[in-house]
């Protein structure tokens, strides 16, 4: 066994754990660790320009790869700057390990320079956190951190490391712990067979069933099993915003995603169904609308790896606690063995109804701009979809552009739709896209953003320059905080309090100043050529500043306090 300092143990552990990139920013309390990283070349460190971006980069990578993202920052402001990033990961159950420097142990509690109680500050937004009390415990604590972050319902874990724990002069035995055991943490590995059988029985008997998949399918790598179940039984499929891509959206069984800005047919089908089988979604307020009026005629089967999700917001008839992949595998086996067959007659009637709903909105979703008219954001997203053959990783920020991207880019694969669904963090998109492009250099990574969100962390243009990260940025520029403005139009008689962006920068010049490419698009005839040109520049970051109609609203939009089917369909129509 070899003797290593705490700092070298950290570097060595990250190598042994197979971590390729970490994202961070140095500072006093983390300098021993930075020195240890400097003296090796396996783990590569990406220097961001703001610690929040480090957390989002790690998060983006984790969402695309299913592996934990790793962040390294110093104490005090370095640590607190990651808070929004940690909260973002927490709300969407993203595996992440955040290593934070801390002041020397003997200074803790004395309001030392750059001291913050990071364990305390981060407590409500982490899955767990550790504070290192002795250098010798570093390998085991780090292994526990990775284990907790990645198993069960994943989430961020913070490790607080006082500077003296990494001192180069103190050396201890290092051994990479292959496994750890925690007596108080044993995530379930399979669901209850009796409950699973009950659920399959109900699926066979249902007359108006619907499958509802959530982000848990993506996190749990269960898209194939989910798709198989839907295809075998010919059941309509919807997903939550986070579940987009778990089932191919171009498949005719897909109704798109549901909820506040979900599709007309998905919300209608949910409302009228007699059985909802939900896997890996948490029935949050943006998905259910008023829970008292939620799916009045449906029995509900809820599969989730986290028991606290079940029964939290809505009453569930058949709860199944277990990982999505294993539960669905068992369901598929039962379906294959079963002598029962689905009620095809009832399903045909149900599909007729659903296809009528679909057809009733076809071609009426929005009015595309012609000629000199201001571009509609929806048609820009559709053009991006075509230009990338639906194969890109699409990352968004938060607001109208996020909803348009979700509605008009059709995802056929999981892990390609990357968005901050739970916390709704403006500024998330750009660094998340960077984290993905860095790790998947051969794939197209497109950030669809707005001029409001993009300005929250645009300094990362500098990081992209340093490491040559050629993401493509589509800025749907409506010169206003579109979603805020939409709510003000609907609920505040168009009093646009602080939702107007005065004095926008010349984005083209700004992006060029950082050494990247930029173009401006105003009209329809410029759109396609600009996209082609942008995507042809494989190794360049290209920023397309696309001016769009500032008065466009996102529809459908569920009516607050209503049921799933109560929706505004345009500025003048409602259900």
């Amino acid at each position, binding site marked *: 066994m070899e003797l290593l300092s705490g700092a070298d143990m950290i570097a060595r552990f990250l190598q042994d754990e197979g971590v390729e990139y970490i994202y961070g920013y140095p500072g006093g309390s983390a300098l021993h660790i930075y020195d240890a990283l400097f003296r090796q070349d396996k783990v590569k460190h990406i220097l961001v320009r703001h610690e929040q971006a480090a957390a989002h980069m790690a998060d983006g990578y984790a969402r695309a790869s299913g592996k934990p993202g790793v962040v390294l920052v110093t104490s005090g402001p370095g640590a607190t700057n990651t808070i929004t990033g940690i909260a973002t990961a927490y709300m969407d159950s993203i595996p992440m390990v955040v290593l934070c420097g801390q002041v020397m142990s003997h200074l803790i509690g004395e309001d030392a320079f750059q001291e913050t109680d990071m364990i305390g500050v981060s*407590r409500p937004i982490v899955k767990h956190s550790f504070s290192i009390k002795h250098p010798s415990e570093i390998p085991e604590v780090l292994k526990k951190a990775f284990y907790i972050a990645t198993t069960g319902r994943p989430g961020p874990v913070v490790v607080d490391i006082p500077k003296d724990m990494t001192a180069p002069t103190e050396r201890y035995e290092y051994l990479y712990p292959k496994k750890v055991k925690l007596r*108080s943490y044993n995530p379930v590995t399979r669901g209850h067979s009796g409950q699973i059988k009950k659920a399959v029985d109900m699926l066979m008997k249902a007359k108006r069933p619907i499958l509802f998949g959530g982000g848990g399918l993506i996190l749990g790598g269960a898209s194939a099993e989910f798709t198989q179940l839907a295809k075998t039984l010919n059941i309509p499929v919807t997903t939550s915003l986070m579940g987009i891509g778990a089932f191919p959206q171009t498949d005719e069984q897909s109704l798109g995603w549901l909820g506040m800005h979900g599709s007309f047919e998905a919300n209608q089908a949910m409302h009228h169904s007699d059985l909802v089988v939900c896997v890996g979604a948490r029935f949050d307020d943006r998905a259910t609308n008023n829970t008292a009026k939620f799916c009045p005629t449906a029995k509900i089967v809820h599969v989730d790896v986290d028991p606290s999700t079940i029964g*939290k917001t809505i009453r569930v008839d058949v709860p199944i606690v277990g990982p999505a992949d294993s539960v669905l595998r068992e369901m598929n086996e039962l379906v294959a063995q079963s002598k029962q067959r689905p009620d095809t007659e009832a399903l045909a009637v149900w599909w007729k109804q659903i296809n009528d709903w679909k057809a009733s909105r076809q071609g009426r979703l929005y009015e595309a701009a012609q000629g000199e008219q201001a571009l509609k954001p929806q048609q820009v997203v559709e053009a991006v979809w075509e230009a990338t053959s639906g194969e890109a990783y699409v990352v968004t920020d938060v607001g109208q552009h996020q909803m348009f991207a979700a509605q008009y880019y059709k995802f056929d694969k999981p892990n390609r739709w990357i968005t901050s669904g739970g916390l709704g963090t403006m500024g998330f998109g750009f660094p998340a896209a960077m984290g993905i492009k860095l790790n998947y250099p051969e794939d197209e990574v497109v950030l669809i953003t707005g001029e409001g969100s993009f300005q929250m962390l645009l300094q990362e243009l500098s990081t992209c320059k340093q490491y040559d990260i050629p993401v493509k940025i589509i800025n749907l520029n409506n010169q206003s905080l579109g979603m805020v403005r939409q709510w003000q139009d609907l609920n505040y008689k168009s009093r646009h309090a602080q939702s107007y962006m005065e004095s926008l920068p010349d984005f083209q010049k700004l992006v060029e100043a950082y050494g990247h490419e930029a173009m401006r698009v105003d009209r329809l005839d410029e759109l396609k050529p600009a996209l082609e040109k942008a995507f042809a520049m494989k190794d360049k970051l290209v920023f397309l500043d696309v001016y769009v109609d500032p008065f466009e609203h996102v529809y459908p939009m569920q009516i607050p306090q209503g049921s799933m089917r109560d929706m505004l369909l345009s500025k003048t129509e409602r259900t």
Partner: protein
Amino acid sequence: MRHIISILMENEPGALSRVVGLFSQRNFNIETLNVAPTEDPTLSRLTVTTIGDDRVIEQITKQLNKLIDVVKLVDLTEGQHIERELMMIKVKAVGAQRAEIKRTTDIFRGQIVDVTPSVFTVQLTGSSDKLNGFIQALGNNTILEVVRTGVSGIARGEKVLSL
């Protein structure tokens, strides 16, 4: 309804703050809270009384179970159980009051554990209801100070909350 939830948790720094933080973070209420080490130095036992309907209590127990530091827990009010709370109460005691307070204390099977010419300190153990009853029984006597430990509880019979 009032529930007594008894928790075995890792005797680690920060574990208590995770439990307490969870209650405020998720808008659950805490009536009483009591925590101390057990015979196993690596474990603490925490008892919390809380009020909520079935849905809320289910969420409380599920969310508590999710905390990594929580090893095991039980809702004692689901079965037969014994609950106890210790109270020390300082009462003004002069003249005729002295005999009356002594009598009341005896009726409640309490003890007077400290005496001055004008003050009795009474120690009393029992359910929260009994302690409340004693305070009421003191009637017009002047209460100078009350300190209560909060509820501790244990299941009746052979049921055990351990590893």
